[in-house]
């Protein structure tokens, strides 16, 4: 059977959205020296079956989307980060030590259906 065309417009498809995390909003500016915040981004959007190959999807997402068509009780593939990058943080702990650490997987660079 033909797969119905997705209801979602292109702008509703899975893709990264800008999200700036400002440490002041969390009250963390009191102990984080730098940065003041960072562009973390997030993934959001639909993962329709017809677009699974175009939306940087995993093979598993393709199979899940296919099964969703067959059995709608199986949820659709979801929009998730597929490429993340680290940030460095300079902060002060409770012993007045100045610490520089690098944290992996803090910034969403790319999204896909998974």
């Amino acid at each position, binding site marked *: 059977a033909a797969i119905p065309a997705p209801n979602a417009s292109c702008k509703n498809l899975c893709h990264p959205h800008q999200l700036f995390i400002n440490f002041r909003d969390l009250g963390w500016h009191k102990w984080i020296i730098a940065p003041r915040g960072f562009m973390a981004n997030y993934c959001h959007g639909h993962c329709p079956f017809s677009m699974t190959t175009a939306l940087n999807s995993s093979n598993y997402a393709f199979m899940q989307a296919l099964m969703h068509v067959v059995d709608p009780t199986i949820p659709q593939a979801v929009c998730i980060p597929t490429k993340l990058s*680290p940030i460095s943080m300079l902060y002060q702990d409770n*012993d007045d030590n100045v610490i520089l650490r690098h944290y992996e997987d803090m910034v969403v660079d790319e999204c896909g259906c998974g």
Partner: protein
Amino acid sequence: FQFQEHVFLQFLGLDKMPSPQKFQPVPHIMKKIFQDREAAATTGVSQDLCFVKELGVRGNILRLLPDQGFFLYSNNLPKDSSCLQKLLYFNLSAVKDTEQLTMALLGLDLGPNTYYNLGPELELALCLVQEPHVWSRSIPKPGKMFVLQSVPWPQGILYFNLLDVAKVWNNNPQKNLGLFLEILVKGDRDPGVNFQLEATCARLSRLHASLLVVTLNPEQCHSSSRRRR
């Protein structure tokens, strides 16, 4: 939200939310490493986050530990040939058991490099404190001396490799009784230069010490051979 924040703070390696009264100064080398990593991230250059190329050592956590010791006497009239005596103490409890020490660099900031204040040549001695009960403010009995260095004035920051000492302290915290620092006036004292000498010793009372510690957490850093394969 509070609970999840606590979980995230643990992920950051913190037991609870820090609440420093004021920010400590960040040394130039930490600023540079931070800025280099930020620039690489912005341009998309791949980085080995477990190697500190600026220091030439493996590691993924850098800590600047402030000196928690105290002056034994200073800025008064120097006694004999001694210009300054200080107990240096660094609390390494923040270093977790899972971390491996790869660098421990003691920095002694003797003040700005200035040629205005040419004073007498000094000698710097560093000894391990080996007897307990040093917190009674009595002068600790110095143990084994491991640094004796001539300090021609003027000087900025002097660095000393304390990796072996810091490893002992980290493995046996009870052995961390601190370091005894003494700055002496080199050679015979000329009564004519007393004024200059007093000024020099008074300036040294603003001495600032810190310990830069680099550690590697193997849980977050696979070995290089594994990464290559």
